[in-house]
């Protein structure tokens, strides 16, 4: 790969902060005493020692009645039932797949939790077990939903809906899970001809629009779809979305369809998608997006 690479001095780096508020909340840092009394319940990011409740992470306090939690700025994904996640198959095991979902333990996708060709209510046979790798093999990306939590904190996933399943013909962006806004819907078809899946675990899947393809397709056609080429304009749009997400992430802005769409719109003033990787452009986009969001909020 040839081309111009710009490397700048650390001192000339762009400060990406887009402050949304001047009032700072109270921050807690590890080892700091939150409260001395026993009246509170110990939540995430806290621990009790010497009759005191202390913080174990650096972040802000969240208080629900008597439960005190400290939420760090970023951490690994902590799953909740119903979350939409994007994950990667790590391993094929006995009647289950191991899936990497950016949580602290690998997630599990049971063979019984996937839709297999030939009807939803079909019994799993021994053949199916032997065919597992045919459906999903190591390295495949899937979208799924958190079905339940195991006692050790690891997640059990399911893909028993048409909108979940194997992903192809797209690009994955990994962001910190804390930047993902929880929404009802995490599947969005953007107006620009790109569809995205914003996984709660911080994995974002960008692909060409595919609603027309997905409806009642036979398996063969899906295969075709995989081998279909994506037009250049689609690819450019995808890249632009991706760069917009990166710009927002660099400024630590929350991600949802609105912010991404706003960012996309703002990015259009840059002709070349490549230009969006320029730190100043990224800041510009983030700043304008924040501005737009603020406007909406004010309204």
């Amino acid at each position, binding site marked *: 790969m040839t081309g111009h690479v710009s490397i700048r001095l650390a001192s000339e780096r762009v400060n990406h902060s887009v402050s949304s508020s001047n009032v700072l*909340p109270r921050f807690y840092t*590890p080892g700091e005493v939150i409260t001395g009394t026993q009246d509170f319940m110990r939540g995430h990011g806290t621990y009790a020692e010497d009759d005191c409740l202390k913080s174990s992470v650096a*972040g802000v306090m969240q208080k629900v009645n008597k439960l005190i939690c400290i939420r760090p700025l970023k951490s690994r994904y902590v799953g909740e039932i119903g979350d939409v996640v994007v994950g990667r198959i790590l391993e094929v095991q006995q009647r289950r797949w191991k899936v990497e979902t950016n949580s*602290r*333990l*690998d997630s599990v996708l049971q063979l019984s939790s996937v839709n297999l060709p030939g009807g939803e209510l079909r019994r799993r046979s021994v053949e199916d077990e032997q065919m597992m790798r045919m459906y999903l093999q190591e390295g495949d990306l899937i979208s799924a939903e958190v079905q339940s939590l195991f006692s050790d904190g690891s997640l059990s996933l399911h893909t028993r809906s048409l909108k979940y399943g194997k992903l192809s013909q797209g690009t994955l962006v990994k962001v910190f899970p804390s930047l993902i806004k929880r929404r009802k819907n995490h599947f969005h078809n953007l107006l620009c001809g790109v569809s995205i899946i914003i996984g709660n675990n911080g994995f974002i899947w960008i692909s060409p629009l595919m609603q027309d393809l997905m409806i009642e397709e036979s398996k063969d056609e899906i295969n075709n779809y995989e081998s279909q080429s994506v037009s250049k304009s689609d690819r450019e749009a995808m890249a632009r979305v991706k760069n917009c997400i990166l710009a927002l992430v660099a400024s630590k802005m929350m991600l949802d369809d609105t912010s991404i769409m706003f960012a996309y719109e703002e990015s259009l003033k840059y002709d070349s998608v490549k230009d969006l990787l320029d730190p100043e452009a990224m800041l510009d986009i983030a700043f304008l997006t924040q501005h737009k969001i603020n406007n909406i909020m004010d309204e």
Partner: protein
Amino acid sequence: MPGPDLLSSQGLRLDGRRPNELRRIRCKMGVFTQPDGSAYLEQGNTKVLAAVYGPHQAAKSKSSTEGVVVNCQYSMATFSTGERKNRPRGDRKSQEMSLHLRQALTAAIKTELYPRSQIDVYVEVLQADGGAYCVCVNAATLALIDAGIPLRAYACACSASMAWHGGQPEPLVDVGHVEEAAGGVVLTVASLPSTENIALLEMSHRLHMDYFDVVLSRAMQGCRDIEVILDKAVREHLAEGWTKEDVVTI
């Protein structure tokens, strides 16, 4: 008197510090996007990058149901010292350093929270000018905090040495390369200053018992001073990265 002249007759050290002064500390958290947490820290001319991955599923061989496994890797860049030298990872010195690093960090991390998980800490010394271990511990602490990994308290490390001033023993905090090379004793302490716990204690030469306490307390004071500086840096980092959504109460 034992040891070379590390203190001038005016009570200043070779680089102009007083015996109880740390070197200048500058740091930045979240320097990488790829790892879960990362930090850059420089203490004087010793500069270190630290990256933390995890906690994530532990490799089967290491997995422990007791708690999280902390896996450290210490390495030095070829250009980190005056003489350019290829430094293979996993040479004896790095291995020892990795082990010591792990000891200090394990003491700080609330390991019991994450059974069957693993945390990888990679530290790379970009420039070594004395006290590399201490700087690594401090940088790794920042990276762990950046990764949102629960800690009991800050783990800070600081070194101290001994000099003579006017016939009286005078401990020196945060020993630089010149002072290290001068051959005096170097006591390295990794501790959780807010709990007064010591996680690791190492000494390079023999030191008489009579002076041990003063040197140790000087090193501990150094740890506390470093903690204050780190804490300030963490708060600044939080203020910078903070978004409104964070305070939304669930």
